[in-house]
């Protein structure tokens, strides 16, 4: 019995020391991690705001839009959108001016295939949507792309998922802006 207690005690000590150590280290790293994450978010939003300043976040302003941020001074909106790609749901963030025209767009979380849909993560891929949505409609099919069609070749599903989401975003913005 005494031996058992002895062993339990030793194990307990090892455990406690380990837990304590981790708690201490966690104390240092947690704020660093948290701070880095907010910094990354603001950096991203600043890029998206295309010169403007992002405002406070709102959640679930509309179905299919988990989050949105106004761009201060009524210059437009930054939306988090969801689309359906080849590998299931994809997260897309995009900023629109008040006319519903895409200013900047990024493909974030996704399960697309490396070499196929994944190439949509490249900024050059998303450039083909910039400037569409307002006066120029968001491209619907590959045929609408003209010279850019090659960029999306081999990944039509991803392409449709992204363009559907962006179009929906544009329509929402126009609705909010009362057009």
């Amino acid at each position, binding site marked *: 019995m005494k031996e058992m207690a002895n062993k339990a005690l030793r194990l307990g000590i090892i455990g406690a020391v380990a837990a304590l150590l981790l708690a201490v280290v966690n104390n240092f790293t947690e704020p660093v991690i948290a701070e880095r994450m907010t910094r990354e978010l603001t950096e991203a939003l600043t890029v998206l705001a295309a010169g403007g300043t992002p405002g406070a976040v709102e959640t679930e302003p509309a179905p299919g839009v988990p989050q949105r941020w106004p761009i201060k001074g009524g210059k437009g909106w930054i939306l988090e959108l969801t689309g359906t790609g080849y590998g299931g749901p994809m997260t897309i963030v995009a900023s629109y001016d008040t006319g519903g025209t895409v200013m900047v767009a990024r493909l974030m979380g996704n399960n697309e295939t490396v070499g*196929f849909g994944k190439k949509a993560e490249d900024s050059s891929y998303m450039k083909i949507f910039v400037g569409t949505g307002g006066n120029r409609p968001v491209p619907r099919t590959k045929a609408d792309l003209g010279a850019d069609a090659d960029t999306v070749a*081999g990944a039509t*599903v991803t392409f*449709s998922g992204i363009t559907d989401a962006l179009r929906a975003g544009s329509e929402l913005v126009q609705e909010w802006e009362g057009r």
Partner: protein
Amino acid sequence: MERLPLVTTSPQIHAPGSTRRVMGWVLAALVPAAVWSIVLFGWRAALVITASVAAAVITEGLLNLAFKRENTLNDLSAVVTGVLIGFNMPPEVPVFIPVVASVFAIAVVKWSFGGLGSNWMNPALAGRVFVFFSWGTDMTRWTLPGIGGADAVSGPTPLGSVKLALSDLSAGIDGPMRLLESAGMPTTYLDLFLGRIPGSLGEMSALLLIIGGLLLIILKIVNWEIPVAYIGSFALFMWAFDGMQYGGGIFSGDVLFHLFTGGLMLGALFMATDMVTSPLTLKGRIIFGLGCGLFTFVIRRFGNLPEGVSLAIIFMNILVSLIDRFMKPTRYGVVS
């Protein structure tokens, strides 16, 4: 007597036949389809097929040399693999792709396991799937066949078009043929049967493949069990469940469309039947064929990959050893 008679173990006589003869007949049965693909796609088809055969043969020859194994080129199995790889390529494929497929097939899938007879996965199909997943865009660029192939126009395969068109299907279209029509690709069953549709080089004409396949079955080079079980179960599944996508009920699928498009005939007659990578016994082969049919159906009906036949067969290849293990013949005088 000038020379001594042979001393051999029984049996003293053998049925006529040899590996070389078996492979030779397979090649002969593939000739009509090869000729037809050259007619349809021109010199490019010849180039692709030649390149894959050459790569397969050279790889096998070099490996034999490098590892001091006896020369196995005479058995012609590497040529069969090469031809089938060529057959599985789209016409406009960059030539390095069939070459890599052949090298992978022979070096990795066949030689690593011990060469002819020792591999458990179909080399040509593994090679084809390998390059498909590596260079998918190049492997899905199709051209419309035209006699001579001179002014080939690019376009998706019927299966591909149907998949695309299905995604924004409007009401009132009752099957794949109507769907093709509405997608601006009017096609008749005869077109499908004769290969006047985009597709891989060797899978163009169901007719020529069936003729070749029947020849092999009649000559008893291949067994009937796998093609019959494969094509039969696949047709049944398609008939039963494919109509539903078009708003039809059960048993309203367009079987003919599915039988004559894509690589089904090539796969079922020439690739699932590779004896090295299919089961040893009759029961086993029927199970294998049924499995191929089921998976081809599932991948074609639900998947986005244009690869139903290849993937279904190599998936079933995995199961062959287990099938052989459990589907042994009942032994004489042994009660289990």
